[in-house]
């Protein structure tokens, strides 16, 4: 079984089919490249894999299972709770004045002890006396709308990027998306979020587990910055980094979640030749940590130099896959992308 199985992914935007029935497998420990001319649908494919888009057709299986929420008891419980709350709100929105007057205002005398039992009884009687159209009906409608909303919202969020990231697929972006006002360490710490356990109250009350977690996460974040060669600027704003370094920080941030798969979207874009050599070296070291790497790249020296396996996309269709040597030998792939003989 492959680590990641892409099965017949199709992505349509209106009349445009950006990705058309693409299937491939990625094995554990590979460096896997997706190449193709501009507009071939590579980034769209990445977005479909990482949950940014919901594929029009097809599925992505990671470690043999589709990463998506299945209906469970928690959904039912949430829908029930919201239904009760919404029903009650609808009922009270119409009748609270009456219930309050009968239950509380009529029974309360200033500075006298309040007869709680009688007040509750009076309010209940008043609630029972509410005609159907102003009591039970709005409550049922409210409950229905509430439960329906919960289920509808859940349907739309079954396969979101955060779920997929938490399952172990991390990514970088073609147009680098760092948290520019945060420091380098903080950027990496955000990437580490899925491994942190401290909740709101732990953070607010600074319970002992807070400082334990802070110690190990900050140490590890600095190690990751060291790994990509940015530890000297750890406390500077990410926005102050030069372009080449931003790519490295994005990789460190993505690695922070200890992903099984790292998806790199054109990591060498805009780099000079010596930076590309450094990047190749870095990608190999990432693979050696046990992370499977999938990359989109135009830089042929890099792709041919480090990939174990390559797939070629053209106009959204997969036109070939194999080892770098096989791709070089495949006429169709070479024509589509590497250019025909004599073109240089």
């Amino acid at each position, binding site marked *: 079984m492959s680590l990641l199985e892409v099965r017949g992914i199709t992505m349509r935007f209106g009349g445009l089919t950006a990705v058309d029935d693409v299937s491939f497998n990625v094995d554990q420990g590979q460096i896997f490249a997706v190449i193709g001319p501009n507009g071939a649908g590579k980034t769209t494919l990445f977005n479909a894999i*990482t949950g*940014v888009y919901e594929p029009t057709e097809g599925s992505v299986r990671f470690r043999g299972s589709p990463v998506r929420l299945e209906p469970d008891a928690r959904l039912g419980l949430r829908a029930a709770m919201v239904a009760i709350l919404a029903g009650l709100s609808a009922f009270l929105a119409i009748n*609270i*004045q*009456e219930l*309050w*007057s009968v239950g*509380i*205002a009529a*029974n*309360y005398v*200033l*500075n006298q002890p*309040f007869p*709680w039992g009688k*007040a509750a009884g009076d309010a209940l009687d008043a609630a029972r006396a509410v005609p159907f159209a102003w009591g039970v009906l709005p409550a049922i409608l409210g409950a229905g709308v509430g439960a329906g*909303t919960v289920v509808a*919202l859940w349907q739309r*969020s079954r396969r*979101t*990027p*955060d779920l997929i*990231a*938490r399952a172990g697929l*991390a*990514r970088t*972006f073609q147009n680098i*998306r*760092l*948290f*520019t*006002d*945060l*420091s380098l*360490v*903080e950027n990496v*710490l*955000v*990437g580490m*979020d*899925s491994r*942190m356990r*401290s*909740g*709101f109250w732990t*953070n*607010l009350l*600074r319970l002992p587990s*807070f400082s334990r*977690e*802070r110690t190990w996460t900050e140490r590890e974040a600095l190690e990751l910055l060291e790994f990509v060669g940015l530890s000297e600027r750890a*406390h*500077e*704003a990410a926005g102050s980094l030069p372009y080449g370094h931003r790519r490295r920080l994005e990789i460190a*941030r*993505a690695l922070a*979640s200890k992903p099984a798969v790292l998806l790199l979207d054109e990591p060498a874009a805009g780099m000079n030749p010596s930076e590309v050599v450094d990047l190749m070296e870095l990608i190999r070291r990432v693979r050696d940590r046990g992370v499977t790497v999938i990359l989109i790249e135009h830089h042929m020296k890099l792709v041919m130099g480090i990939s174990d396996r390559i797939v070629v996309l053209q106009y959204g269709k997969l036109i070939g896959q194999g080892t770098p040597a096989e791709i070089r030998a495949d006429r169709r792939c070479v024509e589509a992308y590497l250019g025909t003989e004599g073109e240089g």
Partner: protein
Amino acid sequence: MRRVPVPILAYFAVMAALPLFMGASGLFYDAFQAIFVFSLVGLGLNVVTGFTGLLNLGMAAFMAIGAYTFAILTSDIYPFQIGFWWGILATVAIGAVAGFLLGAPTLGLSGDYLAIVTMGFGEITLDVLKNLDAVTKGTQGINPLPRPTFGSWSLDLQEERGWYWLLLGFVLLAVLAVRRLERSRSGRAWLSIREDALASQCMGIPPKLTKMIAFATGSALAALGGALFAALLSSTGEPASYDFQVSILALCIVIVGGMGSVAGTLVGAVVMVGMNSLVLVKLADWAGAAGVGNASNVLASPNNWKYLIFGLALILVVRLKPDGLLPPRLEGSAS
């Protein structure tokens, strides 16, 4: 690499010492009590808008919810009478729940749409408070409200200094809470959403839950501000005291002070509310004494200049210092 928050420490040192030089009562106290109340609301809005980047134009509604919750639970015209401190606790909790519930269906909305929803929520809240007169006493407001007690001693309404220090204490607690959250996993998640929502989600941060927690935190602080505002007057005042202009004032405080900056919010409250309840009031007094002012003429009365001044302040800050008077600084940075 923990940086000492010099501006914040200086602020609290100066504020705590000020009353010692100011006599026991006077305009100074009215102004600074209002400043502290709005510091709380501003800190709450700073969490929502400054940290998380969600434009909330309905902060006044959460203040109102706080004031009325506190009033209903503590006033002796109702049977609950749970006392000042329990009332404050319950208010903070209910404020948080209200924020959470408003956030649940709306935080899927982006940017402008959320701003419109929160604005509408503010208006609806006012209408409900005005019309639910069996519960809220309509336009009268609920009074009297209890005084805070410390053991057998209770703080009299005329004890201006006591109230001043009490409110300053609440501001200190709120600052501590907000800074602790900011420098933790929770706060980083908020900031990452503001910086880049998609990247944040692709790092595994659940956007909706994270935004809802920010919303709940902000609403709880605004509700606390509202409850203290009511306690200070011993009345909720009329519902119109929590109108849209109050929400805008809160927003001005955060923008003028510096979005996402705790110290900035404190300064913003001093500048904006101070202008309103100290400078303009003084100016009106002076104009009255000099016979220049004319209370019947809307334009000639300095009290009416505040909206002009809010607008001017906002334009000046956005043009000249777009990050605010005290913009947020990086943790551990040298500058």
